[in-house]
C-alpha cells in the first residue's frame, strides 16, 4: 500500500471518527496538543485504525510512542510491512 494511501486512510479516520477538518491534518500535527485528543480518545483511535487497516495494533508497544500524525503514518506503514513479511 503506497504511503499516500496510508496518509489518506489515516486522515479519513480522523475526519470520520473525530470530525477534525482536513486542513488541520498536517503531518507534524500533534495528536494531543493540536488535534485535541486525550488518552481515552487514543483507545478509540486505535480501534478505528484497526478497523480501517485490518490490523491488530492494540497491544503494540509502539502505539505509546505516537505523538504526531507522521508517527501514525510511519507506524501503520511498519505494521503493514511486517504483516506482509510474515
Amino acid at each position: 500500500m503506497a504511503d499516500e494511501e496510508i496518509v489518506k486512510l489515516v486522515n479519513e479516520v480522523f475526519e470520520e471518527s473525530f470530525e477534525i477538518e482536513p486542513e488541520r491534518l498536517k503531518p507534524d500535527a500533534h495528536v494531543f496538543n493540536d488535534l485535541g485528543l486525550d488518552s481515552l480518545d487514543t483507545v478509540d483511535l486505535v480501534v478505528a485504525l484497526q478497523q480501517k487497516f485490518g490490523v491488530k495494533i492494540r497491544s503494540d508497544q509502539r502505539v505509546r510512542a505516537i505523538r504526531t500524525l507522521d508517527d501514525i503514518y510511519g507506524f501503520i506503514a511498519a505494521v503493514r510491512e511486517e504483516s506482509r513479511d510474515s
Partner: protein
Amino acid sequence: MRVICLNVSFYLLFLLCSLVVIPILAVYVTLVSLTGPRRRTLKHLRKAISWYGTMALLLPFPWVRVKAEDHRGDAGPDTAIYVFNHRSMSDPFLVVCLFWMDREIEGIQVVNIWPFRIPVLGLLARLAGYLSVREMETEDFFARSAEYLEDGVSVVYFPEGTRSGGREMGQFHGSAFRLALRTGKPIVPVCIVGNERIPPRGSLVLHPGTIRVRALPALMHDDYKDLTPFQLKNRVWQLMADETAKMDAELGGKWEVGSGR
C-alpha cells in the same frame, strides 16, 4: 491600598473563621454520624463543605462579589454531571454556587491530586468522597462516578484539568463526557468569569472584582446520545467558550479598579 486591605482582611478572617468553623462542622457531622446511616452522614458532610465554601466566598465582600446565575430552566436537573471552566484557584470554592442555586444539589468534585494535599481541607474532601482522577484506575473511576450518580450525588468536573490563568479555555479531557454517555445523565455546563485575578495564576494575592457563575441549560441524554465522546466534548467546549466570551463582554472586558492594570 484596596488590594492590601482586601488581602489582609480576607486571609486573617479566613484563618480565624476556619479555626472556629471547621471544628464546629466536625462536631456537627460527628453527631449526625452517630444517629444515622453512612449515606446520611456523607450528605451532611457535603452540605457542611458547602457552608464552609459559602463562608469563604462571603469573606472578601464587598471587594469581591460573587453572582450565581441559574439558567438551567424549569427542567434543571438536580443530579447531573456539572462541567466547569477553570481559570483560577478560587474555582473549587465557586462550585458552592450550585448549592446557592438549588439546595437539593449534593455533589462531589473530581480533583487532580493537589487538592487532597491541602491540610485539613484535603482530608475533608477525601472523607466527602471526592475523586482523585489521576490516582485511580480508569474503570474504577467510572464505576465509582456512576455509583454516585445513581445515588443522587452529582459529579463536578473541571475538564481542562488545570487553570487556564486567563480568558482562553484550555482543551477538555474527555472523562466527564464518557461518563455521561455511559450513564445517560444530564450534563450541565457551568461558566465562571471574572476571577482570573482572584487570585491570578502563580499568586495568592486577591484582586477586587465581580465573579459570575452561570449554569447553562442541561444537555439531556437525547441531546447527545448519538455523539461520540470526542464530539460531545467539543460540543460542550464550544457552548462554554461562546458563553464565557459573552459573559466576559457583559463584564465590560475591563479589570476592576485597583487591579494594577
